[in-house]
């Protein structure tokens, strides 16, 4: 009886020891800037401004990276949105190791350049997931071919995927 008890104890210890195996990351590690499109219209009487979510027929987004050889910005080969249809929300990656990120966004046939200035910091998630870069948006600049204005609603860009910027048409 005692030997059975002793063996069962050893087995429990062995099982408990073997349970400390590799674990996979189960947390969200995607950190992207979230922009939503809004349309500004005036009421029939003209004294009230109405802001409604807006869906664009066609959207193409490319990153613009600084090229030290030409001392200017050039388009990246990789396309983030390629003629995507009926888009009202845009998720874009900010530069993790630079403090300014530029995108060329084609709204239907009109091109605008959006420049986001941001601070970067490391956020530790866990031993399984490691670290991610999170951002705090300082300012946003845009050209005005399609875009009327852009406003920061939440400067913190992290894994929560909360809305950060509203783009008004």
């Amino acid at each position: 009886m005692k030997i059975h008890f002793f063996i069962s104890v050893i087995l429990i210890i062995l099982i408990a020891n073997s349970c400390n195996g590799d674990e996979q990351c189960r947390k969200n590690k995607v950190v992207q800037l979230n922009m939503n499109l809004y349309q500004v219209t005036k009421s029939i009487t003209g004294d009230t401004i109405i802001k409604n979510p807006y869906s664009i027929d066609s959207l193409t987004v490319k990153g613009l990276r600084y090229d030290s050889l030409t001392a200017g910005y050039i388009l990246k080969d990789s396309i983030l949105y390629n003629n995507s249809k009926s888009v009202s929300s845009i998720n874009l990656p900010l530069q993790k190791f630079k403090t300014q990120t530029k995108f060329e966004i084609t709204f239907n046939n009109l091109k605008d350049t959006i420049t986001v200035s941001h601070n970067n910091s490391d956020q530790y998630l866990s031993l399984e997931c490691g670290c991610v870069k999170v951002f705090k948006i300082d300012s946003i600049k845009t050209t005005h071919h399609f875009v009327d204005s852009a406003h920061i609603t939440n400067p913190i860009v992290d894994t929560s995927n909360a809305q950060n910027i509203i783009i008004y048409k």
Partner: protein
Amino acid sequence: MRKISLFINSYILCLLVFSVQAQKTAKVLEVDSIPFFNGIHLQGDAASAISSAISTKGNYSYEAGIQVDLKHKYFPVLEVGYAKINETSSSNISYQTQGLFERLGIEFNLISPKKDSKRTTNLFLVGVRVGMSNFNYNINNAIIADNYWGGSETVNYSDILVTKLWYEISAGVRVEIIKNIFMGWSVCSKSLINQDATGNPTPASIPGFGNTSGSNWGFKYTIGYKIDIHSKILNKKK
């Protein structure tokens, strides 16, 4: 998982409270027949020693304790240990720490002595402990890569000093196998009292506590020796 742990903790606490209440009402043995001070248990944890011996990562944890037997019912306990932990995640991030840990608590013997029967030395103990560890830890090789814009960087956190507090609720048995030599096992549920702020580095494992992610169940296989001071005093008087 946290809810299950909370439920089990509450269940063990209820068990503890009801059993103590039951003992009060029963009063099956004359109070005066059990001396207040029954001796001191010196004990060690064989489970952590065996785990340390078979660890392939060079991890170890050793602990020993001292427990006082008061009226064969209340067992205040002090435990001290030392642990070294090396872990590497599936994404190749490494974690190292080593340090001392201490636990202080009290256990209650739920075995009520039956009237007109020989007093048993065996114990069924439930109890609570508060644990503490002050230690340094390192997290190395956390790689952040920028898949779209390019580039990567390695993040290392070195020599971060923290003090962690936790509480444990335990239940187990202890049997006197030969005179004054006790063996037994116990299981415990552990919960951290102080947590780190989100985004800050956190220790993956704490000496004396174990992994901070997932379930925090502990298992002990205690081997101890009872210094029966009361019997020795009685023998001298005779």
